[in-house]
């Protein structure tokens, strides 16, 4: 048992020692925090995407594409003489998580630019944060027009829904010679609602008839009520602009009900899961997409070969291609800007012209959208086969 006084003294001593230690450590911590920000030997680019959740393949494919581009960039010696690093945040396929993911990238990781998201609803949620902080954001695959309207720092590496919706309508009326359509929209999804609108407008302009319009909500698993209603109107095709988990279930239940007309869709159908969930029921579906693995361009071949080597022989889907293209576009813009300051990268991105990407030649227009061609694919015995390509 120590004497009370000596015990008190030893407490005072230890408190003092602790204070000293704190005083020594604090500057180091501060130095590190400021030091991280001003660290000059690497360029940090942020990526946020749905690595998990209902549209997990969108995020994981994009991420694989981004990493492939990153390794190529660093193998060439990085950008502006510095190594490039990508910090990735998962938003679990939820718009509210997308906001915190992008804020974390900007505030904590101090990224110079952001790549993301695939889903329009999530890009729309995150875009105001990037705009406010003057951090350029490049969405690989959000096709809803509203996304880039969030501000002059928001760009995309893909075409927009008016082009996608009208292309599918033209294809269905002119090439497939169909006249009666039904539309099944995901009412909670900006992307789906937008596509349905442009498809409807163009189809009507071309003299076709919309015989039924039904709706569902993302996350639903039961669509038989809507499909039965559609079936009684006997359309010649059903336009289902949604994401792959719901679309594949819809295809399956449509076949069960004896609704055997072709389904039409947008790039939300592009996922290996579509055929896994849908099985034989998705055969005969046509959908618009950003690229086809069967295109005969050397860029496509080279990309697919490298991708297969890196990802255990998996064939890349369009989201992987767009992830790669986005990273390459961003690298190109940073090189041309000669700086990592937000406004300079922004200006360089806006000036992108005839950039040779895997998914086609990209020119950024005044609305910060990519002008490039679209492909129509058909699902044939579980494979996505190339049907035609349409220039903007």
């Amino acid at each position, binding site marked *: 048992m120590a004497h009370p006084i000596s015990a008190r003294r030893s407490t005072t001593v230890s408190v003092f020692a602790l204070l000293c230690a704190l005083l020594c450590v604090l500057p180091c911590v501060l130095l590190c925090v400021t030091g991280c920000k001003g660290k000059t030997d690497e360029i940090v680019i942020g990526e946020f995407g749905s690595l998990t*959740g209902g549209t997990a393949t969108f995020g994981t494919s994009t991420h694989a594409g981004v990493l492939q581009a990153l390794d190529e960039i660093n193998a060439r010696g990085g950008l502006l003489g510095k190594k490039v690093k990508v910090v990735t945040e998962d938003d679990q396929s939820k718009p509210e998580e997308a906001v915190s993911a992008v804020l974390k990238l900007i505030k904590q990781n101090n990224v110079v630019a952001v790549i993301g998201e695939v889903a329009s609803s999530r890009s729309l949620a995150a875009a105001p944060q990037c705009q406010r902080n003057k951090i350029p954001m490049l969405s690989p695959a959000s096709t809803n027009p509203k996304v880039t309207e969030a501000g002059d720092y928001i760009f995309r590496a893909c075409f927009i829904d008016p082009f996608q919706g009208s292309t599918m309508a033209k294809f269905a009326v002119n090439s497939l010679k169909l006249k009666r359509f039904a539309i099944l929209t995901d009412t909670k999804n900006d992307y789906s609602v937008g596509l349905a609108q442009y498809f409807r407008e163009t189809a009507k302009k071309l003299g076709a008839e919309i015989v039924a319009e039904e709706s569902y909500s993302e996350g639903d*698993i*039961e669509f038989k009520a809507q499909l039965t209603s559609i079936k009684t109107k006997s359309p010649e095709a059903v336009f289902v602009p949604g994401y792959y988990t719901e679309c594949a*279930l819809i295809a399956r239940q449509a076949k*069960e009900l004896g609704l055997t007309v072709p389904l039409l869709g947008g790039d939300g159908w592009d996922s290996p899961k579509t055929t896994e*969930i849908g099985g034989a029921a998705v055969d005969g579906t046509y959908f618009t997409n950003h690229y086809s693995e069967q295109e005969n361009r050397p860029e496509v071949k080279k990309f697919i070969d490298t991708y297969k080597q890196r990802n255990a022989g998996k064939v890349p889907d369009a989201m992987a291609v767009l992830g790669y293209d986005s990273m390459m576009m961003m690298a190109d813009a940073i090189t041309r800007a000669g700086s990592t300051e937000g406004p300079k990268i922004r200006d360089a991105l806006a000036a992108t012209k005839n950039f040779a990407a895997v998914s086609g030649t990209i020119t950024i227009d005044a609305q910060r959208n990519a002008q490039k061609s679209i492909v129509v694919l058909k699902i044939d015995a579980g494979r996505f086969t190339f049907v035609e390509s349409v220039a903007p």
Partner: protein
Amino acid sequence: MDQLLQQLINGLAWGAIYALIALGYTMVYGVLRLINFAHGDVYMVGAMMAYYLAHWLGFAVAPSTIGFVIVLTSSMLICGALGALIELVAYRPLRNRPRMSMLITAIGVSMLLEFGGQRVFGPDPKFFPQLIESRSLFKAGAVVLTNIDLLVICVSLFLMVVLRFIVLRTKIGLAVRAVSFSFETSSLMGINVNTVISVTFVIGSALAAAAGAMVGLRNPKIEPLMGVLPGVKAFVAAVLGGIGNFPGAVVGGLVMGVTETLVAAYFSSTYRDAVAFVILIVVLLVRPAGLFGKVTVEKV
């Protein structure tokens, strides 16, 4: 007419799922006067167990009807055990506390299963293996009945008949009815109340697991939060039929399924969930104890 008939088939198959879950709510309410909010999540665990069993036992690669029966019963057994465990760990220690404590614990258990499920099973939707190939059994005009819809309806009916037999014709069923009638008196009469309550949880959870496995087969996308909405809907179905009343739960479930289908078919899927609750409100205004419930007069 054809369309209406088809919609009724769709609605009945969907409603049978609600009915199975609603039975669990009603049974537990009967013996404990507790709304077991974790019940919808037991349904999720049922679907998940069926998914993993189908893969472990190899039925995912070699599908067969026998395989589905084995997967279904094993999943029911596992979830029955889970139900008993939940009761033992979460509810039993609180049995003599204010009822509110148990209710809040039920919400806690529900969240534990939902978010624990996200951790254990992963948050991504899983594709449930097609243990039975879906095909149409008969076509009359535009009306199609698939083998899976028929299977869902038949298995649900079978389980309900078994339940009815247990409740009305066995000793333990008699005990369950006695405990439902009066908790204190039955314990005075030498009925082991703990056993009765455990059995109630086992049966209710097993029924929910059956519903989960059949939903996996019929709508092959399962994820850890899949039980939230069906759980609420089945609870509404149980209240609609008169909570504590077995036939009431079945009728309530079927009414919910058919109504939802008809609303989605003839109005809009946007109003589907709202209409379910509007019906509940209307029924409760007219018959406060539900369709089959008895109004009990509280004697002071």
